[in-house]
Every structure is written in structure tokens, then in C-alpha cells.
């Protein structure tokens, strides 16, 4: 039950709500209706975006028709409903009812909604009556519900919904509820449903280097964590739930590659020699699909307000891209379902697991903190060195190369323990991110422009497009060129700020190592 107004109460034990009803019955006439079976499904993105924004979307099934009503509760307590709805899940924004889409679009973006928790139970509505037999307070008893995940039941609860002009009865009922041990709860049952289902809204903990461990153990544990992230993204990628699953998979691969490259010398050389090409192969497998995803996502922006363009002019391009994406996805799915990928996962996991056990005895060799600080220092200096060499005449490859170095540095920073000075760390991360953004726009613009040229060649050779489409693509390519030029022009200033910050910190604290912004963040690693 949601969107009913009033106050919701829960108790520590399943007997608390019946006890409250009995106590109410002692003071008032309470009339309860017949129990109604309820089946409720909470929907959210895989990363629980609705939950984190204080929202909850439920599909409440009608026991007779089987169709569901969708109820969205918003952070301000308002609700929006839509239905009956008979389509299945997962579903992207475009397939959601019009009444809900405006509320969900800013939160979900490209992420799909999928069932997170399902609960079946009964609900009983009731009324507190005065001497005239008039309702002066409404009640809803949501009885404990069974979750499809088979964990703890979803606890029962009691809604007390005062009627206008009968506030005194509502206050009295609230006192009775408190007397029997009930406590006020949030109107949404979603947090309780997540708890009962054992879903941690915070998600899996961030992979962090345990700096006191031997370097080999700490690096293996971080890589194992990345493997977990990779594996968690596989089913959504294979099922094409939403494009972010593939993105998450690629990030996990890139983080793994980066960690192996920068910290892999603490691992057995044979393992590294095997893992490096395997991880590269996995990255390469995912690249064409991701590039097409990004281009398709970008198209509405690129085509908005084309000088002479009309929506239908780019339609052949959209169709062609969709076809290419389908082909690439087929290849990707074959790759992710292949025995080779399974073997990679199994061997990588077992090898890393074997390295993560530590008996706690001090051993010869470095601890993780020393390795990490030294690598961060090195990665930071590499970024400064590469960046300072870039001029207006530098080829695009140099900027691409710098972007890779910046990413490596970022990934290393991300495995640091929480910094001792969060404000300082935020500044350092912000500047690094600004640098990444400029380099990212530069490279993405170039890659997409090149892709458009290649696509134009394909379409023309197949004689599949009109001149209007080619003109529109030309205009889009020109826009991308503008974006790239702008990024390039901005690069010098952004990089200057990044490198200046390093110098300032070094001057302010000569005791720090050379990689000043990085050591600010790395303080906790020591």
C-alpha cells in the first residue's frame, strides 16, 4: 500500500500489528474487511538509482486480471500511477508509460528497470467507527509477505490514515500503536523489502588495496574484486538489458588491465604473461559494440538542429547503425558464451584466489603501501611528462596516449583507501577528471568522426542512401570536428591547472614526494 497518506507503523515482532489492532478494538469499534491477496514487485535499475533518489516503483498485480498497476512514489511523497500494464521486464525508458516517463527519465538515463524484489502476501483494510457508525480513521494492515528470493519475510505493518476533521482519533490511535511497541516507518516499503531480500543498497564494496598486506596478496584481492564486477555485468550484457552493463564490463576489464600493467610485477610472471593477452582480447571483443552504443546514444544530440537536416534524412544511418550493432552484439554474445571466456574466468579466479590467502606472518618482500605509493608517483610523473610534451602541433595519437596514462592513474587512485584529507583528495580527483573529460571529448569526437566517414563510405558503396543523408552526416562530422578542436584548445589550460597544482603542493610541503596531487590522496596508503 502506498500513496495513501497517513502514517505507517512497524513492530519488532510479527505479533506487534495484531496487538495494536486488538488494543484499538478495546477502545473503539474496529471493522475489518476481508483480506485481499497482493503481489507486488519493486522495480529499479541494477544500481538501484530509484532507491538512492528516494523513489520507489512497484508493479501491483491485480489478482483477477493479472495485469499490474504501476505506482511510483516520489521523493516529496507524491505518487504517480499508470496502468494496467501487462508488458514484461526489464524495460527501457522508451517502453514505460507516458505518465511515469518524465519522473524517471532524469534518474534512469539509459538504464533499464528490472525486478529487484517480489513479495506476495495479503492486505486487510479496516475502519475505526464512532458511535454513529461513521468512519473516523482508516486502517490498512499489510500482513507479512513472502519474498520470491526465499529469504526473511517482509515484515507486516499498519497504516493509520486519519480522516479530515477527526485528528483526535488519529492521535489516539498513534498513541496506542506506540504503546504496543510499534514505531513509525517510511511510507515506502522498498527499503524494508531490500533488507528482507538481503540486497545491499550500497552495492558491492569498492575494491580497495589493503595497504598493510603483502603486495602480492593485496593486488590479487583487488583483481579478484574487479573480476567480480566483470562477472556481475556479463548477464546484463548478454541479455542486452541496457548498454551500461557492457560499459561496466569494459571498465572492469580496463581496471584489471591497468592493475596488471602497473602492479603486475608483484604477481607470478607466468600468470601475468597469460592474463595480459586474455584481458586484451576481452577488451577488444567489447570495443565495437560499445563504440556503436555510444554513437547511437550520441545521434539525437548530433542531429538536433542540423542546418538543413530533417529527422528522416538520418533515418537510413540509424537503421544501418542498428544493423551493425546487432551484428556486433551477436559476436560479443558468442564471445561471452564461449568456452574460452569460461576458461579465462575460472583460471583467473582460481589463480587469484590462490594468491589471496595470507597466514598473517611477516614475510620478506614489500607491503602493498610501498608499492602503491611508488607506482602512483610513477604514474603521475608519466602523466606530467607526456602532457608537457603536447603542443598544438602534436598528433592526435599523443593525446590518445596521454588519455590512457591518465586513466591508469585514475584507476590506481580508485583503489586507494579512503584519504585522510577528503577535501584535498576531492580537489585532486576533480582536476584529474577535468583532464580526462577534455581528453575524452577529443578522442570520442575523432573516433565518431572517423566512424561516420567509414559509415558514409559503406552506405554510398551499397547505394543505400540519398544525398541528403550524406549531407547530414557531413554536417555531423563537421560538428564533431568543432568539438574536437574546442577540446584541443581547452587542453593546454586544463593541463596547466593540473600540473600547476602539483607544483603548488610541492612548494607548500617540500617534504612531499614529487607527485604532489597524488600523494595528497595517497596519504592514507602510507
Amino acid at each position, binding site marked *: 500500500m502506498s500513496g495513501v497518506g497517513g502514517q505507517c507503523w512497524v513492530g519488532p515482532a510479527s505479533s506487534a500489528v495484531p496487538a495494536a489492532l486488538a488494543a484499538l478494538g478495546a477502545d473503539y469499534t474496529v471493522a475489518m474487511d476481508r483480506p485481499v491477496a497482493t503481489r507486488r514487485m519493486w522495480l529499479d535499475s541494477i544500481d538501484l538509482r530509484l532507491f538512492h533518489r528516494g523513489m520507489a516503483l512497484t508493479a501491483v498485480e491485480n489478482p483477477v486480471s493479472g495485469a499490474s498497476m504501476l505506482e511510483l512514489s516520489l521523493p516529496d511523497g507524491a505518487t504517480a500511477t499508470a496502468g494496467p500494464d501487462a508488458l514484461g521486464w526489464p524495460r527501457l525508458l522508451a517502453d514505460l508509460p507516458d505518465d511515469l516517463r518524465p519522473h524517471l527519465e532524469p534518474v534512469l538515463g539509459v538504464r533499464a528497470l528490472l525486478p529487484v524484489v517480489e513479495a506476495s502476501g495479503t492486505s486487510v483494510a479496516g*475502519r475505526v467507527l*464512532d458511535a*454513529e*457508525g*461513521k*468512519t473516523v480513521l482508516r486502517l490498512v494492515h499489510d500482513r507479512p509477505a513472502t519474498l520470491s528470493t526465499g529469504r526473511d519475510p517482509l515484515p507486516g505493518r499498519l497504516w493509520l490514515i486519519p*480522516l*479530515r*476533521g*477527526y485528528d483526535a482519533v488519529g492521535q489516539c490511535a498513534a498513541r496506542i500503536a506506540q504503546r504496543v511497541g510499534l514505531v513509525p516507518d517510511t511510507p515506502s516499503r522498498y527499503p524494508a523489502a531490500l533488507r528482507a531480500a538481503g540486497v545491499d543498497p550500497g552495492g558491492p564494496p569498492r575494491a580497495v588495496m589493503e595497504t598493510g598486506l603483502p603486495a602480492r596478496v593485496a593486488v590479487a584481492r583487488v583483481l579478484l574484486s574487479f573480476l567480480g564486477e566483470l562477472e556481475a555485468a556479463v548477464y546484463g550484457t548478454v541479455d542486452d538489458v541496457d548498454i551500461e552493463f557492457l560499459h561496466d564490463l569494459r571498465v572492469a576489464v580496463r581496471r584489471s588491465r591497468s592493475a596488471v600493467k602497473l602492479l603486475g610485477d608483484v604477481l607470478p610472471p607466468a600468470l601475468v604473461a597469460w592474463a595480459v593477452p586474455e584481458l586484451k582480447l576481452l577488451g577488444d571483443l567489447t570495443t565495437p559494440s560499445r563504440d556503436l552504443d555510444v554513437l547511437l546514444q550520441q545521434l539525437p544530440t548530433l542531429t538536433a538542429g542540423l542546418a538543413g537536416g530533417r529527422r528522416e534524412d538520418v533515418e537510413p544511418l540509424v537503421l544501418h547503425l542498428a544493423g551493425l550493432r546487432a551484428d556486433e552484439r551477436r559476436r560479443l554474445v558468442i564471445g561471452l558464451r564461449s568456452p574460452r571466456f569460461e576458461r579465462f574466468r575460472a583460471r583467473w579466479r582460481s589463480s587469484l584466489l590462490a594468491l589471496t590467502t595470507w597466514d598473517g606472518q611477516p614475510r620478506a618482500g614489500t607491503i602493498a603501501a610501498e608499492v602503491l605509493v611508488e607506482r602512483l608517483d610513477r604514474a603521475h610523473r608519466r602523466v606530467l611528462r607526456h602532457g608537457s610534451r603536447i603542443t598544438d602541433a602534436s598528433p592526435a595519437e599523443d593525446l590518445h596516449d596521454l588519455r590512457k596514462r591518465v586513466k591508469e592513474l585514475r584507476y590506481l587512485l580508485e583503489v586507494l583507501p579512503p584519504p585522510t584529507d577528503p577535501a584535498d583528495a576531492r580537489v585532486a580527483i576533480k582536476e584529474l577528471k577535468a583532464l580526462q573529460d577534455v581528453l575524452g571529448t577529443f578522442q570520442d569526437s575523432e573516433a565518431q568522426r572517423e566512424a561516420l566517414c567509414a559509415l558514409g563510405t559503406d552506405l554510398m558503396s551499397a547505394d543505400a542512401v540519398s544525398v541528403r543523408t550524406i549531407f547530414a552526416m557531413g554536417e555531423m562530422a563537421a560538428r564533431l570536428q568543432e568539438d574536437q578542436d574546442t577540446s584541443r584548445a581547452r587542453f593546454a589550460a586544463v593541463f596547466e591547472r593540473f600540473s600547476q597544482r602539483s607544483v603548488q603542493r610541492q612548494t607548500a610541503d617540500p617534504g612531499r614526494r614529487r607527485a604532489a596531487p597524488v600523494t595528497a590522496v595517497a596519504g592514507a596508503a602510507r
Partner: protein
Amino acid sequence: MKVVATYNIKGGVGKTSTAVNLAWFGARDGLRTLLWDLDPQGSATYMFRVKPKVKGGGSALLTGKRTLDDGIKGTDFDRLDLMPADFSYRNLDLDLDSTKRPTDRIRRLLTPLRKEYDLVVLDCPPSVSLVSENVVHACDVLLVPLIPAMLSVRTYDQLIDFVDTMPGRKPQVMGFLSMVDSRKKAHREFTDRLPNDHASVVPEAIPSRVVIEQMAEERAPVPVFAPASSATTAYEALWTRVRSRLTEPA
């Protein structure tokens, strides 16, 4: 917020039962509805099992010591609230007479509620008075139940003349036949003829049925305890007509 009033100079013609049932249908259709029982007899108040008591009485409302908001009560039905009657409403005419702009008072009392309610139904006492003049000024549709009798039609004509001569904003006047006994030839003839003779009389007619009288025993609108009755069907048809009038562009 739209305002509908049920009004007739005569008593016992079906004003209250119409107000109660139409308000119920409005709430059923999702409109946030307020029924204001202006009749000191408090029949609508009784039907919703609410005590006929307004703190400070009618004069406190008119003098601004209390607002409508203070007196409104929730009913047993979702989205349907009631402003109860109070026996002091019998003096409402005198109280109105002592205020500034006495013919506009009810409309101004409703103004603060315009964002809270989609529909207000006024159940008026049977009289020609300052109260009824206020009601005519406050409403968008003036719903007039007519019993199938010649004198009733004559009074209706007088009412239309009165509204026509009113200065300023005028409501739509909508007459409908009430308490129609189809066994009686005269009633059948009235039902056939009156909507043709009077453009403002709608064809939807409320039959004379026991279930309507039972509202006072059941203390509930007809659709609640007799959903399949012909009276329910008739009130629903009338509500549909009223609703379409309310949504017509002005």
C-alpha cells in the same frame, strides 16, 4: 474548482438526494469533492453520519472568525469531504445581511479551497433568500430538480427570469425532472414534453424509487447500498450530463 448547486424554492423535491449522489459520483470519478450542506435541517450531513455542528455556527464563518477549512469533515468515501450543516444556518440570511457585499459571501468563502477541491456541491435550503442568491452567484451550474407538476414548471420559469436579470457572472441553469412515477400518465407526458419545451431542462430524469427514500435509513448514497438500482443508473446519467457541462468551454 467547479461549483454545482442543487436548488429549488420548494422543499421535498430531491435536492439533497441529488447533491449527495452526485457528490459521490464525482469522488468516484477521481474528483476531490466537497459537499457543503447549507440546509439547517442537515439531511445530507445526517446521511454521511456526521454531527450537524459547526464551531461558532454560520455567523463565525461569515464574519471570518472561522474558515470553511476548520469545519470540513472526511466522509467514509475516498476524496469526498463534507462541510456539515449547523442549526444556526437558519439565521444565515440575517447573518449575511449584516455583512458587506452580502450576495457574494459564499463564493468568497470557497475561494481559498480552489486548489484543494475539483468539485464543490452546494445543497441549498428551500427558500428565496440571501442564501439562495449567494448560491446562484457562487455556482457554475445551478441544478434544479423539478417534480412533474405545472406549478413546479412555473416556479422554474421564475427562477430562470431571476438568473437572467442577475448582474455579473451567471451560472448555467439546468433543470431535471425528479420523483418521476412512470406509472402516472401525467408524469410520462411531462418527461416527454418538458425537455422539448425548455432548452435548459435535460432529458435525464430521476425516478421515484424506494431506494432513494432508504438513503436516510442506510445513511449512504444510493450507489453504495443499491448499485444495481434504476435510481443509481439515473443519478449516474445525470452526473455524466453535469460533468460534461462543467467541462464545456465557457
